[in-house]
C-alpha cells in the first residue's frame, strides 16, 4: 500500500511538471499582454513593467526562473492585482471553493446514490421513470439557468434564503447563504451519480452471488444495501474522484451568480487578463487535486473490492 502511494505520488509530481511546462508556454504564446489596457502605456513604462516581472528575459530563462520559484514554494506575483502574490490570492479563494465544494459534493452523493438505488429497486416502475426524468432534467438544465431560477423561487419570492454572498460567520442565518450555491453546484452531479448508481446496481443485481443471497433467504433490504451496494457503487466511485476535483476548485458561473470569493472566478479573470502566474497557480492546484483524488479512488476500490490489487 505504502509503496503504491509513493509510486503514484512520484508519478503525480512528474505529471505536474509536464502540466506546468505546457501551461507556461501556452500562456506565453497567447496574443495580448498582461499590461495592456484601454489607455496605452508609454512604451518606457511597459518595458519597465516587463523588466519587473522578468518578461524581458529570453523565454527559456523565464521558464527556468518560474520553475525555480515553484521548487522554493514561490508561486510568483500577480500582474493583475499589483503587488499581490499568487498564493495569497489563490489560497483563500481555494479555501472558499473547497468548503462550498464539500457541501456540493455531499449533496450530490447523498441525493444521487439513494435515488439511484431506489430506481434500481423499482426498475421500470414509476419511481424509476420519475428519477430518470429528474436526472435528465438535471443534466440538461445548465447551472447558469438553475442558479437564477432557484434565487427567484427561494430568495426573491419565498424569502426563505439569502440571494447571494458568502457567510461572514458561523451563525445559522449566515450559513443559509451556502444552501443555494451548493445545490446549484451539485445538481448536475446528482443526476450523473443517480444514473451511475442505478446502472451499477442493475448490473450487480443480476450476478450469481445475489441470486445465492436471495436463495439463502436474505431479506431484500440486506440484499440491496449489504450485498449489492458494495459492488454496485464502484462506477460512482470512479466518477467521484474527478468530480471532487472539479467541484472543489470552484465554478465561475456559480461564483458569479452568488458573488462568492472562490477560485473559479480567479482562474477565468486571470486567463482573460493574461495574468500568467495566476493561471499557472490555479491550473497546478486543480491538477494536484485531480491527482490526489485519483489516488484516493484507487485506494477506495481496493477497500470495497478485495479483487482489486494495488500495484
Amino acid at each position, binding site marked *: 500500500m505504502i509503496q503504491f502511494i509513493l509510486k503514484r505520488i512520484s508519478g503525480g509530481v512528474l505529471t505536474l511538471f509536464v502540466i506546468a511546462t505546457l501551461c507556461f508556454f501556452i500562456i506565453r504564446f497567447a496574443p495580448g499582454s498582461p499590461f495592456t489596457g484601454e489607455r496605452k502605456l508609454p512604451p518606457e*513604462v511597459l*518595458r519597465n513593467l516587463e*523588466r519587473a516581472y522578468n518578461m524581458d528575459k529570453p523565454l527559456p530563462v523565464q521558464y527556468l526562473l518560474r520553475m525555480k520559484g515553484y521548487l522554493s514554494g514561490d508561486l510568483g506575483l500577480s500582474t493583475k492585482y499589483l503587488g499581490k502574490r499568487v498564493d495569497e490570492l489563490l489560497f483563500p479563494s481555494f479555501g472558499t471553493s473547497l468548503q462550498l465544494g464539500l457541501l456540493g459534493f455531499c449533496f450530490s452523493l447523498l441525493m444521487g446514490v439513494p435515488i439511484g438505488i431506489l430506481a434500481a429497486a423499482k426498475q421500470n416502475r414509476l419511481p424509476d421513470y420519475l428519477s430518470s426524468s429528474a436526472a435528465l432534467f438535471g443534466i440538461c438544465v445548465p447551472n447558469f439557468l438553475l442558479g437564477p431560477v432557484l434565487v427567484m423561487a427561494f430568495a426573491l419570492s419565498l424569502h426563505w434564503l439569502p440571494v447571494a454572498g458568502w457567510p461572514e460567520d458561523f451563525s445559522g442565518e449566515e450559513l443559509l447563504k451556502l444552501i443555494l450555491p451548493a445545490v446549484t453546484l451539485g445538481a448536475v452531479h446528482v443526476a450523473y451519480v443517480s444514473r451511475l448508481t442505478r446502472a451499477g446496481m442493475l448490473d450487480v443485481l443480476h450476478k450469481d452471488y445475489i441470486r445465492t443471497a436471495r436463495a439463502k433467504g436474505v431479506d431484500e433490504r440486506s440484499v440491496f444495501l449489504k450485498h449489492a451496494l458494495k459492488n454496485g457503487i464502484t462506477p460512482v466511485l470512479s466518477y467521484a474522484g474527478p468530480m471532487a476535483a472539479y467541484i472543489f476548485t470552484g465554478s465561475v458561473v456559480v461564483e458569479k451568480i452568488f458573488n462568492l470569493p472562490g477560485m473559479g472566478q480567479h482562474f477565468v479573470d486571470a486567463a482573460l487578463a493574461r495574468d500568467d502566474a495566476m493561471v499557472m497557480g490555479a491550473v497546478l492546484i486543480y491538477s494536484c487535486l485531480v491527482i490526489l483524488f485519483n489516488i484516493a479512488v484507487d485506494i477506495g476500490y481496493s477497500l470495497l473490492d478485495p479483487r482489486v490489487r494495488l500495484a
Partner: protein
Amino acid sequence: MLKGVPRLLLSIVLAGVAACGGAAEDPNTLIVNNSTEPQTLDPALEKGQPEYHITIALYEGLTVYDPKDLSVKPGVAESWELGGDGTVYTFHLRPAKWSNGDPVTAADFEWSWKRVLDPALGSEYVEQVSRYLKNGMAYFDGAAADGTIQGWAGTKPEKRLEDAKSLVKLVQRRHADPLKALIAAEKDQAVSTELNNAFSECMKRPDVTLGQVGVKAKDDRTLVVTLEAPTAYFLDLAAFFTYFPVHRKTVETHGKDWTRPEHLVGNGPFRMKTWKVKDHILLDRNPNYWDAANVADLKLKFLPVENASTAFNLYEKGRIHWLTEVPRDYIEELLNRPDYHTGPFLTTYFYGFNLNKGVTKDKRVRQALARAIDRQKIVKFITRAGEIPAESLVPPGLPGYEPAKTNPFDPEAASKLLADAGYPGGKGFPKIEILYNTQDVHKKIAAAIQEMWRQNLHIESELRNVEWKIYLDMQSRMEFDVIRRAWIADYNDPNTFLDMFTSANGNNNTGFANAEYDRLVAGAAKETDPAKRMKLLHGAEAVLMDELPIVPMYFYITKNMWKPEVTGIYDNVRDTHPYNRIRLAEKPGK
C-alpha cells in the same frame, strides 16, 4: 521559516481557516457595489473607476471636486496663487494630518508626484503628471534611458533593437559613456546603428535631474508648482487620483506591500479597516481628517459583485445601498423609479476608422459611412437607458465649450458621397470588417450598423468579435477597418477628448495625422484666455468632425441607484462621488 512544499500546504490550511472568520454587520455601514475587485489601492498605479471609488475615500489631493457639480474646491491646499504668466502655482496647505496622525506636508506632495515620474514604478497615468510639470517629460525620459541601459544585459535579443530605437528618443548627456560601452560590446549591425544614433543624440540633450522637476516644497505648508505651459485645467488635475499624496515613510518601509490593510496610511475622509480580496473592503471614518467633524461617522463597505443581476437582487433585499451599474434588461422598469438616478456622463461611444489602409483612407467614404448611421435607432432600440445620440466627440455640458457637430444622418447624402468616391450604389465596394470586443451590447450595435450600411449604401460588412486583450492588441497594431471604441473624460475639459487624435498621441489608433488639427490643439494648450482657448478647441473638433477618423455614436449616461435613506450623493457628469457629505439616515433593513 518553512520552505517549499510544506509551506504551501500550511498556507492552504491557514487560508481555509482564515476564510471562516468574520463579524456580523454593523448597522451603521454604507454598502456600495464596486462591481469588481480593485487592482490596486496605490493612487499612483490605479487605472479607473473600480479603484477610484475607493481611493477617493482614502486620499485627498490639493484640490477636491464638489460632489454636486465637480467644480474645484480647496482640499489639502486652503488657498493658492497663480503667477509667472500662468505657469507657477503657489499652494498654501492647511494643517492636515495623515490617518496615523503625522502632518501632511508640502514635501509629501513633492515626493509623491516625483514618485509617479519614476518609470520603474510603472504608472499607467504617468503622462497625466509628466506632461504638465516643468521638466516632467525630460526627467522621465532620462530615467527611462537609465533603466534600459541598466537592464541591457538581461534583455532578450529580439527586444534589443526596439530598446535601441527608443533610446534614440530618450538619452541625455550622462548616457554618453554607458552608450559607448554598449556599442563596443554589440555584435548586431542594426542594433549598433541605432545605438550610434542614440550616442549622437545624447550630446544634444542636457541632463535633467529630479531636482529640476517643477514641484518644490518651499516649507512644510507651501508647495510651488511650475508648469511646462499655462494649463487652464491644472486645478482640476490637482484633484485627480494620480496627484494624490502618499505617505512616504509607509511606502519606503513596506515597498509594494504598503497598500495592505495593516500598513495603508491615507489622508482622506475615511481610512482602511479590512480588505478581503473578492469579498469586501471596509473603511471607517478617519478621525485625523482635517474636516472630520463634517464627515458622517460611517463605515463604507465595498463589494465586488460583478454580476449586475446579483447586485440588483442584493439591493432589492436591502443588502446593498448603492449600485453604480444596473442590469440592462431591467432599464425600462427602473426609469420610473425614484431611487434610480441618471444623467449625462462625460463618455463617448464611437467608431474608429483605419486611415492607413483600404477604402477608409478616403474621406468621402468615411463621411458616407458616417451619414448612413441612424444613431437615434441605436439609443432607442439597443442601449435603451436614455443615452444621447452623439454628433460630436466632446459631450455637451463642459462649461464654456460648444461642441462642433458632424453632419446628421442622411442616407441620400451618404449614398451620393459614396458615389463620388467611386462606388455608385455600393458597386465595387470591398467588404469591410467591424471589430469589437466580446460583449452583447457591442454586438447588437455592430449588427445594427451593418444593416444600416446594407440598406442605405448597399454595401456588405462583416462583424468580428475578439476577447478584450486581443482587441486591445489589434487596436494598437491597427489591424481593423472599423473598430468600436469609447473614451471617458479624465478631467473637465474638451482637451481630454480632442488631445487623443493629435498625430503623436499613443491613443490615436486611427492613423489620423492632420497638421491643422495638431496646430489648433497645441495652440489651445498654450492659450491663457479661456474664451480664445475654447474657440481653438472648437476649431479642432470641427476639423475632426469633417475628416471623421472617428464617428461618434452616443454619449453615455450615469446609472446609479441608491436607497432613499442615503443622502449626499449627487448625479454628476463624471460619475465621481466624494464621500464627504454622504449620510445614512436610518438603519438599513436587513
